[in-house]
C-alpha cells in the first residue's frame, strides 16, 4: 500500500509563527542537552527521575509537565484573544485559528487540568492516609509517562504534520477523513488514546490505594476530605475513561480503516459520537473539579483553625456528585433535538446535581464562620473560589434549562460559563493546593508577596476577561468565530476581554517569578508543619523521606495530626516506642519510560499511517510487557540502619 502521507507532509512551512516555534524548540533542545552534558546530569536524570517509582517524585514531574502545558495553552489563549481584540484583525488566519482553539481546549483539559490533579493525588494521598506509596508504584510510573508522551505527541502536531482543527471535542463529520484528510485529527485521537490509558490506570491505582492501604485505625469516615474527593474522582475515572477510549478507537477506525461508525453516509451516525463523547465528557468535568473541592475543604479547615463543618454531608455530597455525574451528559447537546422527554430528564438531573455542590459551598462558609482565619495564599485562592464558583454555578443552572439553552448554546455565554467554573474551580483549586503543599514537596514556602500579586492579577484578569463574554453571548457572538466586523458592536467588550487575558498572562509570569524567587529566598520549612496542619502529611519532615513513614502511624478519628499535637500540648501524649523494621520498597525501573517511548513511536507511526512504524512501536510495547512479566527481582528492603541514618539526618537538621 502506498503510504498516504509522505515526508513532504512532515514540516509545515510558510507560517512565521510556526517557523518561530520550530527554531525555539530546536534551541531549547540543544540547550537542555548542553546543560545536562555540561553538568554531567544525564545519569542523575535517569536514576533519580526517569526511572523513579516514588509517588512524590512522580507528583513533582506531573507538576512540571502541567505548568509547561499551562504555558502552552495560555499562549494559545493569548493568541486567540489578540486575534479577537478588535474587528477584522489578521493575526491568525481562519485555519490557524481553528487549530489554536482546538489545541487550547485539548491541552487545558487533558494535559493541564488532569496532570495537575494527578500531581496533587500523587503528592498527597499516600502521606495523608499513612501509606508508604501507592498500591501499584510501577503502574503509577507507567501512568505518568503515558500521559507525558501523549502530551508530547499532541504538541508535536504544531510543528510537524499540522494540528487538529475540529475543536477539542473533535465532532464528526468535521473530524472525519472526508473533511479532515490531514494527519492533524490522528494526532488528537492517538494522543488522547495514549494518555487515556495512563489516566485509567491512575484511577484504578488510587481507588485501590485508598481502599486498601490506609494506616491502622483510619476508617473510611476518618479520612481527610481530600482523600475522599480523590476516591470519588477515581470511581469517575474508572467508569468514564473506557468510554472515551472506545469512542476514539471507533473514530480512528473510521479514519484509518475506512469504517463508517460516525460518517454521514453508509449508516454512520455522527450524533452517536457526540453522545459517547459526553458520556465521558461530563464525568470528566467532575473528575477535574472534585479534587479541587477536596483541597478547598482541607484549606478552609486548616486556615480557620476549625474542623470541617458538616464532614458527613461533605462526604455524602461528594459521592452523590460522582454518581449523578453520569446522568447529566445530554445537557451538552440539548440542541441536537432528542425530544422533550430526553431533554426534560437531563435538564432536571442537571439542576439536581447543583444541590450537593450548594451544600458544599455552605459547609465551607460555615467552616470559616467564627474561625480564626489566616489569609495565607492557599486561603486567598479558596476565598476567591467561592463567589466565582457560585456565579459559574448559577450560569450553569441557566444553561441547564433546555428551552433557554437553544439561545445560549455555543455562544460566548457558554464560553464564559465553563471558563468560570474551570478557572474559578479547578485552576484556583490547584493553585491553592500547590501553594498549600509546596513546602511538603520541596521544603520551602512560596513567597507570600509575589503570591499575592499573582493572586490579584489572576482575579482582576479573570473577571475582566470573562464577564464581558457573558454579555457578548447575549449579543449574539458565537464560539469559534475567528473574526467579526465593526457593525456587530462587539468591539469594546472584546477589547476589555483581551486586556483581561493579558492580565492573566502577567499573573502567570508573577507565579513563575514567585517560584524562581522562592527557590533561592523562600522561607525554609524546618518543622515539616509550616501551616499548623491537621492531617498526617504534616507529621512528616519536608520533603518526606522516600519511604514516607519510618513507623506507620496509628490513628484514632479525624484530623489525626492535630489531635496528636493537642495531646502533646496537654502533656498526655505517650509516644509508643515502636521498633523500626526493614521497609519493603519497590526498585526503580526503566520499563515505564521505555514502554511509553514505544507507545509514542506507535502513536506517531499511526498518525502518519506509516504502518511499519506503528507496528514497530506496538512490538516494542509487547516486548516491554513480556520482559516485565519475567522480572522477579522488583523490590528490596531498606535496612533499619539506613532508616535510622535517614531519620537522624532529617531530624538532626531540625
Amino acid at each position, binding site marked *: 500500500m502506498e503510504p498516504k502521507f509522505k515526508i513532504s507532509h512532515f514540516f509545515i512551512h510558510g507560517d512565521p509563527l510556526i517557523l518561530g516555534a520550530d527554531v525555539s524548540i530546536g534551541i531549547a533542545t540543544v540547550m537542555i542537552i548542553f546543560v545536562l552534558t555540561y553538568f554531567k546530569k544525564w545519569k542523575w536524570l535517569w536514576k533519580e527521575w526517569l526511572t523513579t517509582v516514588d509517588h512524590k517524585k512522580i507528583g513533582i514531574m506531573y507538576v512540571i509537565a502541567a505548568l509547561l502545558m499551562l504555558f502552552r495553552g495560555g499562549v494559545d489563549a493569548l493568541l486567540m484573544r489578540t486575534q479577537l481584540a478588535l474587528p477584522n484583525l489578521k493575526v491568525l488566519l481562519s485555519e490557524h485559528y481553528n487549530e489554536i482553539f482546538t489545541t487550547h481546549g485539548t491541552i487545558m483539559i487533558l494535559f493541564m487540568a488532569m496532570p495537575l490533579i494527578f500531581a496533587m493525588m500523587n503528592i498527597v494521598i499516600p502521606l495523608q492516609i499513612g501509606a*508508604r*506509596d501507592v*498500591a*501499584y508504584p510501577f503502574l503509577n510510573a507507567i501512568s505518568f509517562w503515558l500521559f507525558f508522551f501523549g502530551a508530547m505527541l499532541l504538541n508535536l502536531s504544531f510543528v510537524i504534520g499540522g494540528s487538529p482543527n475540529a475543536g477539542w471535542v473533535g465532532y464528526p463529520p468535521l473530524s472525519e477523513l472526508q473533511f479532515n484528510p490531514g494527519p492533524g485529527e490522528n494526532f488528537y485521537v492517538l494522543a488522547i488514546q495514549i494518555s487515556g490509558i495512563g489516566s485509567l490506570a491512575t484511577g484504578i491505582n488510587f481507588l*485501590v490505594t485508598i*481502599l*486498601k*492501604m490506609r494506616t491502622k485505625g483510619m476508617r473510611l469516615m476518618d479520612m481527610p476530605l481530600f482523600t475522599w474527593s480523590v476516591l470519588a474522582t477515581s*470511581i469517575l475515572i474508572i*467508569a468514564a475513561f473506557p*468510554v472515551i477510549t472506545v469512542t476514539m478507537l471507533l473514530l480512528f477506525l473510521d479514519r484509518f480503516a475506512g469504517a463508517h461508525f460516525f460518517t454521514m453516509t453508509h449508516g454512520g*451516525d455522527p*450524533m*452517536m459520537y457526540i*453522545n*459517547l463523547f459526553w*458520556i465521558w465528557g461530563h464525568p470528566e468535568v467532575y473528575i477535574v473539579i472534585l479534587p479541587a473541592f477536596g483541597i478547598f475543604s482541607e484549606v478552609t479547615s486548616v486556615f480557620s483553625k476549625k474542623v470541617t463543618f458538616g464532614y458527613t454531608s461533605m462526604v455524602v455530597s461528594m459521592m452523590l456528585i460522582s454518581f449523578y455525574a*453520569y*446522568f447529566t*451528559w*445530554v445537557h451538552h447537546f440539548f440542541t*441536537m*433535538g*432528542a*425530544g422533550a422527554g*430526553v431533554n426534560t430528564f437531563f435538564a432536571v438531573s442537571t439542576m439536581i446535581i447543583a444541590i450537593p455542590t450548594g451544600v458544599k459551598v455552605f459547609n465551607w462558609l460555615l467552616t470559616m464562620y467564627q474561625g480564626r482565619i489566616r489569609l495565607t495564599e492557599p486561603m486567598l485562592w479558596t476565598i476567591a473560589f467561592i463567589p466565582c464558583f457560585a456565579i459559574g454555578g448559577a450560569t450553569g443552572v441557566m444553561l441547564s434549562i433546555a428551552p433557554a439553552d437553544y439561545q445560549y448554546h455555543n455562544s460566548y455565554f457558554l464560553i464564559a460559563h465553563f471558563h468560570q467554573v474551570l478557572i474559578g474551580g479547578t485552576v484556583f483549586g490547584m493553585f491553592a493546593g500547590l501553594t498549600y503543599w509546596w513546602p511538603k514537596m520541596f521544603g520551602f514556602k512560596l513567597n507570600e508577596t509575589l503570591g499575592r500579586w499573582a493572586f490579584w492579577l489572576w482575579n482582576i484578569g479573570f473577571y475582566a476577561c470573562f464577564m464581558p463574554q457573558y454579555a457578548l453571548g447575549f449579543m449574539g457572538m458565537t464560539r469559534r468565530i475567528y473574526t467579526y466586523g465593526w457593525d456587530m458592536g462587539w468591539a469594546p467588550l472584546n477589547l476589555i476581554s483581551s486586556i483581561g487575558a493579558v492580565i492573566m498572562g502577567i499573573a502567570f509570569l508573577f507565579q513563575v517569578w514567585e517560584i524562581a524567587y522562592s527557590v533561592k529566598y523562600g522561607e525554609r520549612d524546618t518543622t515539616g508543619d509550616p501551616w499548623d496542619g491537621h492531617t498526617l502529611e504534616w507529621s512528616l519532615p519536608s520533603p518526606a523521606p522516600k519511604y514516607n513513614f519510618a513507623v506507620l502511624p496509628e490513628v484514632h478519628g479525624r484530623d489525626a495530626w492535630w489531635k496528636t499535637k493537642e495531646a502533646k500540648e496537654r502533656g498526655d501524649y505517650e509516644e509508643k516506642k515502636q521498633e523500626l523494621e526493614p521497609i*519493603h520498597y519497590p526498585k526503580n525501573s526503566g520499563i515505564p519510560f521505555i514502554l511509553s517511548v514505544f507507545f509514542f513511536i506507535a502513536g506517531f507511526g499511526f498518525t502518519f499511517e506509516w504502518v511499519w512504524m506503528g507496528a514497530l512501536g506496538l512490538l516494542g510495547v509487547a516486548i516491554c510487557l513480556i520482559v516485565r512479566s519475567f522480572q522477579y527481582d522488583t*523490590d528490596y528492603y531498606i535496612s533499619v540502619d539506613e532508616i535510622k541514618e535517614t531519620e537522624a539526618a532529617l531530624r538532626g537538621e531540625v
Partner: protein
Amino acid sequence: MKHIESRQASHGSTTSYIIGFVLSILLTILPLWLVVNHVLNRTALIVTIMIMAALQFLIQLLFFMHIRESEKPRYNVLAIILGIVFVITIVGGSAWIMTFNSQVQ
C-alpha cells in the same frame, strides 16, 4: 506492603485463564462473522450481539476478575452493582437518546 502479601492468594489456574481467553475470543469473533456474512436479519442480529456481549461480560468477571475470590466480597458486590447501573445507563440512555433519529428520518 499490603499489595505484596496478596501475591500469595490464589489467582486462578492456567486452565481457567485459557478457557476464559478462548471463550472471549469466540464471543468476539462470532458477532463479527455474523455481521460480515449477513447471516441474520437486523433485529435478530442486534439481540444476538447483545447477548454475546453480556456473556462476555460474565466470562471476564469469572475468569479474569476473580469475582469469587475475595475475603471481603463487599467491594466486589458494590463495584459490580455500580458497574451494571452505569452500563445500563450508557447503553439504555444512548438508545433512548438516539430514538430521535428514527423520528427525524
